[in-house]
């Protein structure tokens, strides 16, 4: 007799647990309008706001005089774990003093190798580089992911000391 009771009790308990599960999913189904969390990405591009600290890509800000803050000290190059940063520098003659001065020629940044670990930004003594919040960098060729961060003809800002 006990076995029979247990048999039926088992069936009812089982059905009850199934019903509780269906209640949960049923709630989300009937409240789908409120509960749906999917964001429709390319459509919401205009309103999409990334967090200010989001690490998208390394950039070098330039001011209106086409001047940046990079002295070419190579601290970031040393700090980078993946060799994504290459600094090609040159000695240019200063027109005023006539002395030769070391400046950057090209700040080469290989985005394809970068892990966005933020170590270069921490290493930079002059705050010349920073992380940008853009992230759409899908391209057909890996070569297109090599950027030269300093703009052509740009100079170091005068107030930046090494």
């Amino acid at each position, binding site marked *: 007799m006990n076995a029979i009771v247990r048999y039926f009790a088992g069936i009812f308990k089982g059905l009850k647990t199934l019903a509780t599960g269906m209640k949960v*999913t049923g709630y989300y189904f009937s409240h789908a309008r409120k509960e749906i969390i*999917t964001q*429709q990405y390319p459509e919401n591009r205009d309103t999409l706001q990334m967090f200010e600290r989001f690490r998208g890509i390394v950039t070098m800000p330039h001011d209106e005089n086409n001047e940046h803050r990079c002295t070419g000290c190579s601290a970031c190059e040393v700090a980078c774990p993946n060799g994504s940063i290459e600094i090609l520098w040159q000695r240019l003659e200063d027109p005023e003093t006539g002395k030769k001065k070391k400046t950057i020629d090209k700040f080469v940044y290989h985005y394809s190798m970068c892990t966005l670990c933020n170590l270069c930004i921490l290493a930079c003594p002059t705050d010349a580089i920073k992380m940008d919040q853009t992230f759409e960098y899908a391209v057909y060729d890996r070569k297109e992911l090599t950027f030269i961060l300093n703009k052509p003809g740009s100079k170091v800002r005068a107030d930046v000391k090494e």
Partner: protein
Amino acid sequence: MFAINLYDFSGTVNSIHQWLNARLTPGWATAAEWAIIGISLILFVAISVIILVYVERKVAAFFQLRIGPNRVGKWGLLQTIADFLKLLMKEHITSKNADKFLFNLAPFIMVTAVFLGLGAIPFAKGLQIFDINIGLFYIAAASSVGVFGILLGGWAGNNKYSLIGALRSGAQVVSYELSIMLSLLTMVVFTGSLQLSQIIASQQDGWWIFKGHLPAWIAFIIFMIAGTAETNRGPFDLAEAESELTAGFHTEYSGIKFAMFFLAEYVSLFIIAAVGATVFFGGWMPFHIDDWAAFNRIMDYIPPIVWFFGKVAMLIGIIMWFKWTFPRLRIDQLLVLEWKYLLPLNLMNLILVSFIVLMGWYF
């Protein structure tokens, strides 16, 4: 020319019959009728599967807090058509050591089986391809032929995953066939006939789910469980078991042959829901409450075909709800559920119903 009466299709059908007979010899007229039936059936299947796949994806999405298809067409309505075109254009891949004949045969067996099953479904008053006196039995027999397709497909693909899937499916369908038949048999004791038109006619004054009270409910629950298992849908999708057997019996299929398995799955889902709607919910019979004449008249305004598809949609919705809630059973648990729970309960229920009918304790 053929006035379509939404409330009774027999007039329309008869006028087509007479029109064809007046113009053709009787043999050709029959052939033409067959052709019309065949084409309309294919069209019906194509359209209903496209709708069902879309609905399934949307329903799944809403259960899962997603939006679901929304890129092709308004609300993604054309998504299934796009997918179907993609499947049509895909390459047919047959693995090197596959049994080529059986491999190509299997999807056709699946599709044929479900088409046979559709033959006896009464869609509305007078809208039924053939109304034989063992209609219910016939549908069960025809739709269970589909398991051959699964078994052959799983065997012929020369893939161990598909073989395991096929064998699981064999064990599953053979066992659950029993329950589904017994639960329908329980209802047949009420209706007193296997003929689907008779079954519907017996529900003129109320659906069996209400008239048969408790035993009918038990039979209905068992029918829903067994029906879900019969169509190889979650939580009984052991033959596919995506996380265990990659894709189960159709692992090796691609392109249109895969689409045929897909189509068969959804049509058999429709058949199960249609049988359930017919036996338990009165098929195309409108909902009536005994002495509310005004209410009954309003209900009568809704065409029977809407009633039928509404009930089918409700049952399909419940089966989808199962699929998107429960984890999958294991093969031995599946068989335990059938032989230790559903079958004894069914037999007890059958005795109970026989007793109730003998004593006349139903409405």
